[in-house]
């Protein structure tokens, strides 16, 4: 890897290329594709092994093809419950973080106000603080306040760490908006609320959707903070972690594959829509 990073990858903007001789090897391309292959290889493994016809408890060596695990995806009620919990938590996080983060992002992008610096600082800290520190802090607080941990403490914590991501996404969109559109609406006699509802909100919708999606993904994937605040509630990552002791059943691969497929689908749809709007 070092060999590929030391020499400068050939940067040849289009006009320059006309004057210079063509480069022979495009190293950057190979590096990029190698990195992509590297990143995707465990996922390929997960998908392939969701079709593995294993006899025992351990899903690590290939033993033949089967669709059995897809038909029997709900064989473990605890796994199903954990997944349902994860989805519910992620949805609630999406809604709450979307709402709070949307308002915050709107304010940050639209107004200058006292406390903006502090807000930036807190948001930046909440994004970059290590998960183990946030988890430890939340648990410490729940302990000192004598609050039992469980489903709702997970939701509260997930909203906390995803709200800044939503706010940032929305703020960027607000900054990019053309204020002339809203002025025009005002000039045409729309009230502040009507302007917001009919002009501002639709323009913010893509950013809100994107922010909500980020919140959803962050929530459903979270392991470290969730372990600290979960009490007796299990989530998908926690359940997987538990099974690593005794052998992770192929149903986990099945659900992982399905979630991955839905994620890819959403991303592709989102990208297609963005392209059409553009």
């Amino acid at each position, binding site marked *: 890897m070092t060999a590929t990073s030391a020499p400068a990858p050939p940067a040849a903007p289009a006009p320059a290329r006309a004057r210079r001789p063509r480069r022979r090897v495009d190293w950057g391309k190979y590096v990029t594709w190698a990195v992509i292959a590297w990143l995707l290889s465990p996922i390929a493994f997960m998908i392939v092994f969701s079709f593995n016809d294993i*006899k*025992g*408890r*351990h899903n*690590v*060596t290939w033993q033949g093809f089967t669709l059995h695990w897809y038909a029997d995806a709900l*064989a*473990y009620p*605890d796994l199903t419950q954990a997944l349902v919990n994860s989805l519910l938590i992620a949805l609630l996080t999406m809604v709450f973080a979307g709402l709070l983060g949307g308002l915050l992002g709107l304010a940050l992008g639209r107004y200058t106000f006292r*406390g903006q*610096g*502090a807000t*930036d*600082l*807190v*948001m*930046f*800290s909440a*994004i970059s603080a290590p998960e183990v520190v946030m988890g430890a802090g939340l648990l410490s*607080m729940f*302990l*000192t*306040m*004598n609050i*039992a941990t469980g489903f709702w403490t997970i939701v509260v914590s997930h909203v906390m760490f995803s709200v800044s*991501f939503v*706010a*940032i*996404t929305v*703020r*960027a*969109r607000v900054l990019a908006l053309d204020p002339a559109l809203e002025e025009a609406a005002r000039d045409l006699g729309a009230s502040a609320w009507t302007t917001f509802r009919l002009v501002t909100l639709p323009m913010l919708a*893509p*950013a809100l959707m*994107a*922010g909500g*999606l*980020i919140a959803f993904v962050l929530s459903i994937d979270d392991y470290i903070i969730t372990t600290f605040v979960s*009490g*007796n509630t*299990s989530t998908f990552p926690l359940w997987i972690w*538990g*099974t*690593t*002791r*005794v*052998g992770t059943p192929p149903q986990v691969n099945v659900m992982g594959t399905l979630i991955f497929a839905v994620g890819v689908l959403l*991303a592709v749809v*989102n*990208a297609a829509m*963005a392209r059409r709007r553009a």
Partner: protein
Amino acid sequence: MSRIDRALLRGMTRARMSRRGLLGAAGLAAAGAALTGCGVGGQGAGKAPESEDFWAGKESNGKLRFANWPLYMDAERTQLKEFTEATGVKVDYDEAVQENHSFFGKIQPKLADGESIGYDLMVLSTGIELAKLVELGYLAPLDHTKMPNFSDYAGDKYQDPSYDPGNRFTVPYTSGITGIAYNPDYVDREITSIADLWRPEFEGKVGMMADPQEIANFALLLNGVAPADSTEQDWEKAADKLKEQRDKGIVRRYYQQDYIQPLTNGDVWLSMAWSGDVFQQNAEEGAGLEFVVPEEGATLWSDLMMIPRTAANPVDALMLMDFLYEPDVAAGLAEYINYIPPVPEVQNILEEKAADASGEEKEFLEDLVGSPLVFPTDEDYTKLHNYVPLSVDQEESFSPLFLSVTQS
């Protein structure tokens, strides 16, 4: 997608910090400290009530919630269905226990507040957590007048054990041996002793357990000390022995329970292991692993059923506890989990079943009945030791000592 990312990135790279903002945050933090008060409530050691007091006026509610370890009952929950058929009591079964420590950590705050933990029956192992639960008065005393099956069918070794005299709070769900397993594909000689786990020729190929008690037991036995009679000095010597093994690079990893797959595919060649895991792996995947009770001795542990004092349906829990001691039911359990059943009668029942069975099932049942991993011989039993008995005070020096071995 790309749109999100770019927006996100812009935000990420746009952080601005001001000294004033920092000060403001610090002030807020101070306020926070004041807000949250200054203390965590104590768990105050309560005394367990006498059996009659506890059970007075308690009746069956027709349901209960059962927290158990993963893979401790088949996916159909056959035994629970039988129980519901026999008694009409419905059971919510939850594979909630994955580790003694962490499960205890989760339920302990609720028990301290006298709140229900959401379970009426739970299974935890012999060990530190059990001592804590008893000492803190968190367990309901069992009413043995309502447990005829237990007194009739439980094996002698499981009645009146040293860790819970008179079975006051617990009865075994299943038991097992902690011994050594090795993979003959990689180890070309017979392994017979704990000392083999310290041999430099196996550098990087030895698996040890992460549990403080388990590794303490093995090091004590290696030093020729019976865990049950060990002193604090013995512990320190044992910890030194373990650190020596670790620092020489002999230990590949300290495993929770996930040593069995690495053992099968050759990441480790020999490892501390639990009897039932090895039996299961051989039966299911034909792994061909060997399990030995080392000559220095090994330990016998039990996973115990117990009722938290705050249980909402203790009578139903007691009923299920006793039901699982009916020999036919116990045989069904043993057939699935492959650990040592506390009901000796099970061996005969499975023997008869094997005689009537055919094909693969017959083969499996014969293996099971004949296996010293599931039905240890009397000779094995003489080599099996109990755990280090720990009071809560002793535990405060014991655990950190051995955690400093495994968590480094």
